[in-house]
C-alpha cells in the first residue's frame, strides 16, 4: 500500500509537468482579421520577405484586382490598387521574388493574350511601377485554368494550381523550374494531388515547406489548409493545420514569413467583413525552417542616391548563379534569402557604375539570421576602383576557379565600356617581407590581366601594378583586417 502511494506521489508531478510542457510546446494560435478587409472577397495575400509590403487580391471594385499595403511603424497603411499590370477582366493572386522586384500574377482575359483561360503572367518593377504583365508562355500555361503561382525564394521554382487535363481531378498543384532561359514543363505534385481540389500553393522561404488548400474529405469543411514538407524531390504526407486556422468555412491562401511567427491566410468564416477575408495567425503553428536573409541599400558611392541595380548571387563552389535580383529603383533596397552552408559572391551591377562584389559565407547550421549589407557603387570615373572577388592559393598567383565568375563580369564590363582603361592593382597583407609581398602582388595582378586578355580584352587597356603591403585597406593585424588587405582592385585610369 505504501509503495503504491509512493508511486502515485511520483507519477502525479510527472503528469503535471508533462501537461505543462505540452501546453508550452503547443502555444495557442490566435487569428485576427486584416484591418483593410472589405465586404467583397479579399484573398491571396503575398508579403515581401522583408515584411514591408503586403499584396493581396480583392474584388471590392467589382473586378478582381491586386492591392498593395506598405508597412510603417509596424502598421499597414491603407491599400492602393495596382493599375499598371495591364487590362484584364480579372487580375490577382500575385507571388513575388524575395526582393519584391518581380511578380507573377494570374489574369483572366489579359490584354497580353492567353493560352486559353486564366493564365500566369510576369511583371517587373521599374522606376517604382509595375510593368505590364507578359504571358509566361505555353510551357507553363495550358489551355485550361492556370493560376495562383508561388515562387521559391530564389525565384527559380514556380508552384501553381491548374485544372488542366491529366491531373487527378478538380484543380491540382504543379511545379515548374526555371532552366536559365525558359520554364520547364510543369510536373504535377502527384504526392499531394487528389481527385478533389488543391489550390493556392505557397512555398515558404525555406523552399521546403509548402502550404496549400484542399477540399478533400477529412477536413473541417469547405477548403482546409494543409502543410507538406519537401523530402528529397517529393513532398511528405500533408498535415491539416487544424483549428483555428481551419474552420467549417473555406480557408485558403496560407503564407508564412521568413523567421517570423506570423502567417497570413484567407477565409470566408463568419466574423469577417464579408466574402473571403484576410486573416493573420500568430503564432504560425507550422513554421518553416529559419533562413538566412540579407538586405541593404544599393547607393551611389559619391552622392549616396539609391540605385536600382542587378544583384547576382553566385555559389562560389559550383560557380552557378543561384539568383538574380534587382534593388528597388526608388529606394535602392534589396533583399535576398540565402541557404546555410554555402559561400556566395554577391555582386551588384549597373551599367553606369563600377560593379561591386563581396564574398558572403553562410556557415552550416546558421538559422534565422538577417544580414545587413549596404552596397556603394562607384561611378565610372577616373581613379574610382572596385575590389575584384578573386581567389588564389596560399603563396601562389594561380587563379582559383571560384574567381572566374567575377573576372567574367569584369570582362563584360570592359567590353561594354570600350573607352575605359583600367589598372589592376595587387595588394597583400603584412605577413612576409616587403620584397616577397611586392613580387606576389605583381604576379597576382598579372594573372588577372592574363585572364581578361584571354577573354578578348585588348591588353593595351590593362596595366598592372603590385603594391605589396604598402597600401593596406585597414591598418590592423587582426585576421579580419588582413583578409581585407589581401585584395586585387580594378581602378579606372582613363575614360
Amino acid at each position, binding site marked *: 500500500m505504501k509503495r503504491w502511494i509512493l508511486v502515485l506521489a511520483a507519477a502525479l508531478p510527472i503528469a503535471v509537468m508533462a501537461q505543462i510542457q505540452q501546453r508550452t510546446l503547443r502555444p495557442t494560435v490566435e487569428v485576427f482579421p486584416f484591418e483593410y478587409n472589405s465586404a467583397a472577397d479579399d484573398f491571396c495575400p503575398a508579403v515581401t520577405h522583408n515584411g514591408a509590403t503586403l499584396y493581396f487580391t480583392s474584388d471590392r471594385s467589382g473586378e478582381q484586382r491586386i492591392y498593395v499595403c506598405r508597412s510603417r511603424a509596424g502598421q499597414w497603411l491603407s491599400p492602393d490598387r495596382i493599375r499598371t499590370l495591364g487590362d484584364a477582366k480579372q487580375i490577382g493572386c500575385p507571388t513575388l521574388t524575395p526582393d519584391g522586384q518581380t511578380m507573377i500574377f494570374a489574369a483572366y482575359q489579359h490584354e497580353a493574350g492567353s493560352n486559353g483561360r486564366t493564365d500566369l503572367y510576369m511583371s517587373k518593377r521599374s522606376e517604382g511601377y509595375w510593368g505590364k504583365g507578359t504571358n509566361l508562355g505555353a510551357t507553363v500555361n495550358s489551355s485550361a485554368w492556370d493560376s495562383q503561382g508561388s515562387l521559391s525564394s530564389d525565384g527559380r521554382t514556380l508552384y501553381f494550381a491548374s485544372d488542366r487535363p491529366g491531373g487527378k481531378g478538380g484543380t491540382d498543384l504543379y511545379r515548374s523550374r526555371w532552366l536559365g532561359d525558359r520554364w520547364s514543363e510543369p510536373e504535377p505534385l502527384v504526392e499531394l494531388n487528389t481527385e478533389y481540389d488543391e489550390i493556392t500553393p505557397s512555398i515558404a522561404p525555406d523552399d521546403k515547406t509548402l502550404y496549400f488548400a484542399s477540399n478533400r474529405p477529412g477536413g473541417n469543411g469547405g477548403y482546409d489548409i494543409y502543410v507538406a514538407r519537401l523530402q528529397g524531390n517529393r513532398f511528405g504526407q500533408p498535415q491539416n493545420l487544424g483549428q483555428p486556422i481551419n474552420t467549417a468555412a473555406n480557408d485558403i491562401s496560407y503564407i508564412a514569413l521568413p523567421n517570423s511567427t506570423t502567417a497570413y491566410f484567407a477565409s*470566408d468564416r463568419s466574423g469577417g467583413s464579408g466574402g473571403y477575408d484576410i486573416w493573420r495567425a500568430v503564432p504560425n503553428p507550422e513554421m518553416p525552417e529559419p533562413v538566412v536573409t540579407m538586405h541593404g541599400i544599393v547607393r551611389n558611392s559619391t552622392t549616396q542616391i539609391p540605385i536600382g541595380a542587378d544583384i547576382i548571387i553566385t555559389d562560389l563552389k559550383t560557380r552557378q548563379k543561384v539568383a538574380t535580383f534587382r534593388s528597388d529603383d526608388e529606394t535602392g533596397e534589396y533583399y535576398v534569402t540565402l541557404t546555410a552552408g554555402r559561400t556566395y559572391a554577391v555582386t551588384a551591377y549597373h551599367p553606369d557604375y563600377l560593379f561591386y562584389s563581396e564574398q558572403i559565407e553562410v556557415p552550416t547550421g546558421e538559422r534565422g539570421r538577417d544580414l545587413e549589407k549596404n552596397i556603394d557603387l562607384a561611378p565610372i570615373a577616373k581613379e574610382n576602383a572596385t575590389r575584384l572577388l578573386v581567389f588564389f592559393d596560399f603563396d601562389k598567383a594561380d587563379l582559383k576557379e571560384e574567381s572566374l565568375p567575377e573576372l567574367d563580369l569584369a570582362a563584360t564590363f570592359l567590353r561594354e565600356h570600350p573607352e575605359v582603361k583600367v589598372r589592376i592593382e595587387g595588394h597583400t597583407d603584412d605577413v612576409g617581407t616587403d620584397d616577397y609581398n611586392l613580387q606576389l602582388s605583381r604576379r597576382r595582378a598579372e594573372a588577372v590581366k592574363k585572364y581578361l586578355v584571354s577573354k578578348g580584352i585588348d591588353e593595351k587597356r590593362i596595366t598592372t601594378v603590385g603594391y605589396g603591403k604598402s597600401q593596406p585597406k585597414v591598418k590592423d593585424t587582426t585576421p579580419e583586417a588582413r583578409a581585407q588587405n589581401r585584395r586585387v582592385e580594378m581602378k579606372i585610369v582613363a575614360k
Partner: protein
Amino acid sequence: MLKRFLLCVFAAILVVALRADEDVLRPKGRPEPSSGPPTQGIVRGPWALGVELGGSLSFFGQDVTQYQAPTYQTNLTSGSGLGPLLNLAVDYALTDALGIQARLGYDQKHFTTSGYMDSPCETPPGSGLFIPTRVEHTTSQTIAYWTGGVAFRYRFEENWMILAGATYHSRSNASFTETDSITGGTCQFYDDAGFPIGRRRQESGSNTSAFNAARWSVDLSVGYRIPLSENIVFLPRLAGQIFLNPLAGDNLSSGYHPVLGQVYAFTNRRLHALQLLLGLWFNL
C-alpha cells in the same frame, strides 16, 4: 407559339446572366449563391432594399364585466384573425453580423369574436309561449394601420438572423361586421315593422374612432435568408408583435340599458400579433 418563344428567350437570358465567369480564385466561377460564402449584409453589400408581403395573425383579448343578466357579450373575451401586410424596408450592415433596418408598411389587423346566449322566443308568434332559443353573435373587426419602424438585425448563423425593434402604428381606418344567427328552434328575426327577416341578420359599418389612433409595438423576429442570386435574397421571417398600449379605450357605455342600467363593460382591450413575412431583398 409566341409565348413559348418568349419563354425560351427569357430562360436563355437567365442562364447567361446567372452563369459565372471564371476568375483567378475559382476555375468555375462563383458557386451557386445558396452555397456561397456569408455576406456582410442581408444580400452582399452593406445596403439592401427589401419588399415584404405577408399576413398578421392577430390575437384580440378584453376583459368583460357583467353587471346584469347574462348576455352574449360575456363570451366576447377573445378572438383572432388573419390580415394582410406589406412592408418596404432598408437594411444597412453595421458589421458582418449586425445591421439596422428601417421599414414602412401597411398592416391590417383582423379578428373575429363570437358568443351566444339563450334568448326567450315566442313560439309560435303571438302564442304567448316563450321557449329559450340559442342566438350566436359574431363580431368581425378590421383595423388598418400605416406603420413605420426600426429594428436591429443580428445574424447568428450564416443564413439565420434575429431582429428586435419597435414599430409605430398609425390607425388608417376600421370597419366591423356583426352577425346574429339563430341556431335552434323555429324562431326568426323581425324587422321594425314586425315582418320576419329570417334566422340571420347582419350589420356592417365603419367604427374607426372606436380604436386608438396610435399604437407602439415591440417586434421580435427570426429570419432565414435563401440567396436566389448574387444580388437577390429570399428571406422568410416569423415575427412576434407585442403592443405596448391598448387596441381601444375601455368601453363602459355600450352595454347601458335605459332601465337596467349598466349591463356589461369592456376593459383592457388588447391586441397582439404573430406575423409571417416573405421578403425579397435586393443588393443596393
